[in-house]
């Protein structure tokens, strides 16, 4: 359209009405979408989490108050004394181990405790310390998710920063390497999980082969996905590898935003590479780091696809995550009220962590 300037119209009261109509027409589609598919489901989740709604059941839905939250979050502890005979001597079992009363019998006999299950226990001295939970699987999934976040965020962000520093130099053909480092990002995580399941295989996998070749047979074979101790780290490594390209680019843009004058000045002062990194690069990247860390953390909390494709939460629940538990309970076992309660907790945790990280970085940045 060629704006033809003939008469100058004064923006007056008369114009406000059609303008308002334009605002309405132009903003409604997106707002309606956000409202329908983000706000409503969110409040549905909150509402449903106080009921026993099931995805499909001939039974009536009823309010259950905080029952779902109680089951998810209720953790308790107890200390057990070993079994002693009449003379007060410790009773030893067949293997010469101190015997304790069977926990299950104790819990089942007490109506107040009947809902609790064993989460974990330690023997210390002559006592057994027991942690109980109403849904030990959720507590485990929550801890697994935290572990994943704590491992993957530094690894992925560190890797991304290292890659960005590597390719932030004037070398011919450097863009080729940038493309290569970025290529896993355009490969879907489902495909990556499938291909890596093969690479991780204990007997056939290439990783064990490389590992053994490089360590002259000293290390391995590791049962990457089959060993509860290794399964989560395996998913961490793969996830960091797949996604680091995105953060690499963001860091690269950040690096290129730092004025070269600063480095030149540092060179004149005779500063070494480390000193330049600490005193120029990192402070210059502060905003970028905040963004990258927060967004990576939020993404990491939603871990689901890799687990669903590679391990289905196993072995022994070692890779079950909050989202995996939510989908298992809410969709596969049809307890949608319980799944909703998990979703609400998931959201609150994300919100808390994002606010906490923001505050942390803000206070550090204040001089």
């Amino acid at each position, binding site marked *: 359209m060629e704006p033809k300037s003939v008469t100058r119209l004064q923006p007056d009261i008369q114009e406000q009405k059609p303008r*308002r109509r334009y605002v309405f027409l132009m903003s409604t589609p997106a707002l309606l979408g956000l409202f329908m598919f983000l706000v409503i489901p969110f409040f549905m989740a909150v509402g449903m989490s106080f009921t026993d709604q099931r995805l499909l059941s001939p039974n009536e839905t009823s309010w259950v108050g905080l029952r779902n939250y109680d089951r998810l979050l209720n953790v308790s502890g107890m200390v057990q004394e070993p079994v002693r005979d009449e003379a007060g001597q410790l009773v030893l079992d067949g293997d010469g181990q101190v015997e304790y009363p069977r926990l299950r019998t104790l819990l089942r006999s007490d109506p107040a405790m009947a809902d609790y299950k064993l989460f974990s226990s330690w023997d210390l001295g002559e006592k057994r310390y027991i942690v109980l939970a109403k849904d030990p699987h959720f507590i485990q999934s929550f801890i697994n998710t935290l572990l994943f976040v704590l491992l993957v965020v530094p690894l992925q962000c560190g890797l991304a920063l290292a890659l960005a520093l590597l390719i932030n130099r004037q070398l011919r053909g450097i863009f080729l390497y940038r493309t290569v480092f970025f290529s896993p990002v355009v490969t879907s995580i489902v495909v990556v999980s499938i291909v890596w399941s093969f690479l991780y295989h204990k007997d056939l996998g290439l990783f064990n082969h490389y590992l053994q070749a490089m360590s002259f047979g000293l290390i391995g074979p590791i049962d990457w996905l089959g060993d509860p101790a290794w399964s989560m780290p395996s998913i961490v490594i793969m996830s960091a590898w797949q996604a680091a390209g995105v953060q690499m680019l963001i860091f690269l843009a950040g690096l290129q935003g730092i004025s070269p004058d600063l480095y030149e000045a540092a060179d004149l002062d005779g500063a070494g590479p480390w000193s330049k990194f600490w005193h120029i690069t990192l402070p210059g990247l502060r905003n970028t780091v905040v963004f990258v860390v927060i967004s990576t953390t939020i993404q990491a909390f939603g871990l689901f696809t890799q687990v669903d494709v590679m391990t289905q939460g196993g072995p022994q629940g070692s890779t079950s995550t909050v989202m995996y538990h*939510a989908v298992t309970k809410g969709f596969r076992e049809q307890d949608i009220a319980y799944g909703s309660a998990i979703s609400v907790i998931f959201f609150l945790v994300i919100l808390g962590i994002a606010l906490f990280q923001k505050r942390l970085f803000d206070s550090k940045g204040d001089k």
Partner: protein
Amino acid sequence: MSVKHLKTLGWYLFLTGIGYVFLFPLLFMLVSSLKPEQAIFADLYSIRAILPVGELSLDNYRQVFEKSNVSLYFWNSLFITVGTVIMGLFVNSLLAFTLSRMSWRGQKLVLAVVIALMIIPLEAIVVPLLLLASKLPSIGWEGGMLVLKSSWLNTLHVQMLPFVANSFFIFLFYQFFRDIPKDFDEAAELDGATPFQIYRHIIVPMSGPVFATVAILHFLLMWNQYIWPIMAVQGEDARPLMPGIQIFFGRQSSWGEIMAYASLVTLPVLAVFLMFQKKFVTSLAGAGIKG
């Protein structure tokens, strides 16, 4: 050779080594998809694992097409992705336009709400969204007849409409539009241009980069959707690629076929990526630095 040259060579070697780490799973996938099962295992522990050597054929691909309805899933994925991206570009940029270049009552509040919504991850709402989608009526196509369906589940649009409006993309548009000098639209407004005309003829032509950024991010998001389709879509008719390959994998098909399937899913995106790789890279970097 001077020290400087040696140093440069060292850098190249180092970068190539790291590049191998990033590339070999992809190479292994592509190469294995062309080999018969025995050859994959025979070549496993040598450099041949990532080289297209030996007896190569498209047999695995043929098997995949025979055993799985890949082409249907492919078109579904393409339709869902392209359709959502196009609708999204339009809808999200329109809202961003009203937020950044017009003034109206409640504007500040709406902007604050949009920014606040960025924190809600998709994962937090999929479970209730499933119940919602199951209760929304829709119109379906069955046996040459238009039928009223009592839910959105098992449709293409259930995979599209919930993901059209996106607060992060609105925010990206908002930031970009905000920084365009106001002189242009003020002049146009004085000439009697409507807000939509200003959007269409002034803002959009000046906002190529942000449209490219959002299109690419939205494309990747939609193409790789997994958790939502496995819950909301069970039948074959509307199934996209990602659940398709997961099901194929879950059936313990032969590895050659799995790799062929994986390659089929990856190659289109890889091709688009290589074609537009420069745009891709600057877009993504830009999205991050501003957010």
